[in-house]
């Protein structure tokens, strides 16, 4: 999986061979320009896959117009530049109105372009998402994007290993996002700094691939550049018949190879963290940092009273315009809650955290012991 074309350098770094690079419009323009200025060609065109995703409009109407639907001139230039660079260098791109276009970390798995055992890089810190497929995946900067384009290698230092095991069965309506938030709540946003985290345990194995991607995606919020999960039947079933996944005899050989991508039972880790799945509650994200979470039965700081805390489950009334209160009140109550009505720093984690629970709640009855705002909305 990992190449070391020559021995470690004096600073402990070595070259690793990169199997897949995903490109998007924000961190690639100067990398391509660097190639052009130096008269260099990409080392291996088929290792790259591009899609614009940071600057694309979200409404169907705008999307139907293609690049013309992008109103912001700086965004438009970035997307147009990616299109032009992909044509010039012969790199496959899922353009803005291609049905395969999507979030860059999702496109790879969906198309079977992310495979177990791969080294995967992208100019985006959430690249660890691909770790759900037992791929060594992490984000890189623009100069490294250029370096990978030109050499198919990256200069890297070995990371420490951490295993986070979540054992047992998750409670009703507790989703992958709750699991990873609970992990971050436990180890902190710098807890994984310098580590590659392996997420393991029966609760992790019980997650769908989408759930596993959700967990690995947030490795960086725990400070770790890499988060990964061992291969099992769920991984292999997901990949079967995906567009870029191997077929025929190669599929059989690949599956046999992938089955080996699990940690030894006696593997030693630099750090091990164990969580009891049964103790993980639906998480309440109450602040501006991913570590500012607690279970629904926990307590959150009272934004109106300094250091005082209030039970998370009862923090429902709106008493002031303080964002903390609005966040708590509006958490999961309605699918029509708009991002624009929530202060910016809280949007992403809140919306992401809640949405899977709505789906879960549609399938299962919500315990009546939960507060009203954690129950399913009326669909």
């Amino acid at each position, binding site marked *: 999986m990992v*190449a070391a*074309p*020559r021995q470690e350098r004096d600073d402990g770094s070595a*070259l690793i*061979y990169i*199997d897949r690079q995903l490109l998007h419009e924000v961190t690639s*323009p*100067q990398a391509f*320009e*660097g190639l052009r*200025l*130096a008269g*260099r060609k990409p080392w*291996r065109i*088929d*290792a790259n896959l591009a899609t614009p995703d940071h600057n694309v409009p979200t409404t169907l109407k705008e999307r139907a117009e293609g690049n013309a639907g992008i109103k912001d001139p*700086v965004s438009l*230039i*970035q997307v147009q*530049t990616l299109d032009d660079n992909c044509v010039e260098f012969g790199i496959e791109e899922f353009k803005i109105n291609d049905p395969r276009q999507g979030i860059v970390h999702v496109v790879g798995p969906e198309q079977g372009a992310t*495979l177990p*055992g*791969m080294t995967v890089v992208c100019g985006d810190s959430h690249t660890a998402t691909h770790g759900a497929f037992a791929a060594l995946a992490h984000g890189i900067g623009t*100069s490294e994007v*250029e*370096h990978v384009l*030109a*050499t*198919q*290698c990256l*200069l890297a230092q070995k990371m420490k290993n951490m295993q986070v095991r979540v054992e047992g069965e998750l409670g009703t309506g507790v989703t992958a996002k709750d699991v990873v938030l609970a992990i971050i709540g436990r180890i902190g946003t710098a807890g994984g700094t310098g580590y590659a985290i392996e997420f393991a345990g029966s609760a992790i194995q019980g997650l769908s691939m989408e759930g596993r991607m959700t967990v690995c995606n947030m490795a960086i919020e725990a400070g770790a550049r890499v988060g990964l999960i061992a291969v099992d039947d769920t991984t292999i079933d997901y990949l079967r018949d995906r567009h*870029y*996944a*191997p*077929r*025929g*005899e*190669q*599929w059989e*050989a*690949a599956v046999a*190879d992938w089955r080996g991508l699990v940690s030894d039972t006696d593997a030693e880790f630099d750090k091990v963290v164990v969580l009891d799945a049964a103790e993980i509650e639906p998480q309440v994200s109450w602040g501006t940092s991913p570590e500012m979470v607690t279970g629904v039965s926990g307590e959150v700081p009272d934004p109106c009273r300094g250091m005082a805390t209030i039970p998370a489950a009862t923090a429902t009334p709106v008493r002031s315009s303080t964002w903390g209160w609005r966040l708590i009140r509006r958490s999961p109550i309605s699918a029509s809650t708009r991002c624009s009505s929530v202060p910016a720093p809280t949007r992403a984690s809140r919306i992401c955290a809640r949405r899977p629970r709505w789906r879960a709640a549609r399938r299962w009855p919500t315990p009546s012991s939960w507060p009203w705002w954690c129950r399913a909305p009326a669909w």
Partner: protein
Amino acid sequence: MKKFERSEGLVAPLDRANVDTDLIIPKQFLKSIKRTGFGVNLFDELRYLDEGYPGQDCSNRPINPDFVLNQSRYQGASVLLARRNFGCGSSREHAPWALEDFGFRVVIAPSFADIFYNNAFKNGLLLVTLPEETVERLFQEVAANEGYALDVDLENQRITTPSGEVIEFEVDAFRKHCLLEGLDDIGITLQDEGAIRAFEAKHRAARPWLFRDSAQA
């Protein structure tokens, strides 16, 4: 990266200490999707009397006639003579990009900021650190002699003044090697091209499904 070649270069003096990266290339120009074209905005706040913005045509902007690079005797300069702590501020690589794009190949100063020092060498710019008194003398000589040029010989780590005086300087052996050979980070990695190709061939044979052009249809 271009190889650094020995040449005689016209010297422009920038008599100011602690020139930071924002002075070298102001922040508004960082939105560019390019790494070239920053030369017209090098020292933008000092060179022009109005405020610059990205993508602007600079040919009609009001020039600051007092700024050294706007004076006719320094047109075509490729050696910048500066004061201590040149390049302090941020880690932006746009600063060496702008200096190079303008035409500078060498900056001489009593000291340089750390990150800038690294970024400059990575982008083909030679930074020469000389004692404060030597730099002071060079400033005086530049001011007194129009057309003052220095012969910068990196190979032998020597600078020769128009009067024939030879000034020796120190430079890290690896950085010197990279500049003389035109090796940037990619160039250094490509020195291992054979090893990378050998690994790739083995990797392809063992796991052909990782290579889309070797994958079974």
